[in-house]
């Protein structure tokens, strides 16, 4: 196995490990993450950046296609809202949020809508939560006019946070509910954004913690069991959670409960959550009268509605 000869220097399984490494090597989280990948998988830096660059290309493609189309999904439940949101941002109508936030919402739905219409996306970390991270990172890069290098930093930092969650809890809605999918992606995006805008490692983790804490308990109860409703719009609000958490962290606000403990809480909540609320489409929104109509439409066996 890897690491027989040299002692591994950049291994982390928790956010506490990550913070220690960042302090020890005086590096941002993204650099620790890249070094982790280099030493664990014997890859060189160029290969790793190239692989992320391919992901970035696909993310941009999905976002761009998504904001420009009215194409509906096979069920007709989704499609066209990313475009609506983008047009609203471009309009002269009164708005409360700034450009970055509005564009982020549009991008988040764009990826989700492309996914629902069987388009190509990056599952980051899963298909259901795939809108949040690219939306946050691309919109912040546009809003603050940041380079692609900063974007890579954001993506690597987000991945590192995702890895810690995967290691200590789960990223699957079927196991942990939506807190594990959109919740995790909000935490990942929050950390990524925070690093991109110049936050330090502790601020990145505070942002991730504040975002994840706010998503705890979120169930996975999609209509017809499809990754459309509430998933797509949930990513739009998820990225706003990420942006707000980043603002709080930059304001110097700290999480009272450390990130690693929040991840443990998420796992515990996931275990306590009824199976009906974990991707089976047997509870919550999925069994509302509207949800039952969708069941019927796609040929699922009828169940009693709320």
């Amino acid at each position: 196995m890897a690491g027989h000869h040299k002692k591994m220097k950049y291994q982390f399984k928790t956010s506490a490990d990550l913070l220690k490494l960042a302090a020890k090597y005086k590096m941002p989280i993204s650099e620790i993450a890249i070094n982790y990948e280099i030493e664990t998988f014997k890859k060189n830096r160029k290969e790793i950046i190239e692989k992320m660059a391919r992901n970035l290309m696909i993310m941009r493609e999905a976002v761009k296609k998504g904001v420009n189309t009215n194409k509906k999904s096979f069920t007709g439940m989704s499609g066209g809202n990313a475009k609506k949101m983008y047009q609203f941002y471009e309009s002269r109508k009164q708005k409360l949020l700034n450009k970055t936030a509005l564009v982020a919402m549009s991008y988040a739905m764009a990826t989700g809508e492309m996914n629902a219409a069987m388009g190509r996306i990056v599952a980051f970390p899963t298909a259901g939560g795939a809108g949040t991270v690219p939306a946050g990172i691309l919109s912040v890069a546009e809003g603050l006019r940041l380079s692609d290098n900063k974007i890579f930093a954001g993506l690597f930092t987000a991945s590192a946070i995702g890895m810690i969650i995967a290691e200590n809890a789960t990223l699957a809605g079927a196991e942990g509910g939506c807190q594990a999918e959109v919740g995790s992606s909000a935490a990942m995006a929050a950390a990524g954004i925070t690093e991109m805008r110049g936050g330090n490692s502790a601020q990145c983790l505070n942002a991730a913690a504040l975002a994840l804490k706010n998503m705890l308990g979120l169930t996975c109860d999609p209509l017809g069991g499809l990754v459309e409703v509430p998933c797509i719009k949930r990513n739009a609000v998820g990225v706003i959670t990420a942006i707000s958490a980043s603002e709080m962290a930059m304001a110097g606000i700290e999480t009272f409960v450390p990130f690693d403990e929040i991840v443990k809480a998420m796992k515990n909540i996931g275990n306590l959550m009824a199976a009906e609320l974990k991707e089976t489409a047997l509870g919550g929104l999925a069994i509302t009268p509207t949800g039952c109509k969708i069941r019927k439409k796609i040929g699922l066996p009828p169940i009693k509605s709320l």
Partner: protein
Amino acid sequence: MAYSLFDIAGPIMIGPSSSHTAGAVKIGQFSRAIFDKTPSKITFYMHGSFANVTAGHATDKALLAGIMKLKTSDPNIKNAFKLAHQQHIKYEFKKTDLGPSYHPNTVKVVLEAQGKKKMEIIGSSIGGGSAKICKINDFDVDIKAVAGKYKYLVISHGNDTAVLSDVMKHITNFGKFRIAGIQSTHINDHMLTVMNLEGRDLYLYEVLELEKIHGIEFVRSLTRLEH
């Protein structure tokens, strides 16, 4: 097994769901490789969440696409039914309950072809686009395929693992590869081994060279699992 950053950032996939699309494509790819022939008829017995939410998640198309060797990022997945028709592959989806010991996203794939013994393979999509083969015919196995991590070699050989050292020697001669894991399982009177490789894709002539090794029945390279 250590996580890679790209287990989180990826895989690149065709929607709508990593468990139901990407993972299902992988189960299809594995089934086809283990069966070692284009099946003429396939019956998919869908269990748990696979049974409940198949159509809208396109799990059915994804499984079939995998059997036809499509990549998880192939935009043609949505045309899988049409492609199967063109290739004269008959398919059927049935609901089943395999029991509580199986993951909610599980399918039993029954493959048939002229002049070949029918084969039953049970596979689960375990989240994030990763898949696991749990049973081949009557034999419990545990073969995992993590998205974007390795190239997989599926090797069918006689009832002994000595021949594998020959295989490894050849692979080392081909160039810079790292063998990251080997899992072997007995099936009737022969064995099935899955090797996880790191490195480039194997060329077809290299696979054919491996097949010439005495004691090897067939070798299938699932290089397409990557995306």
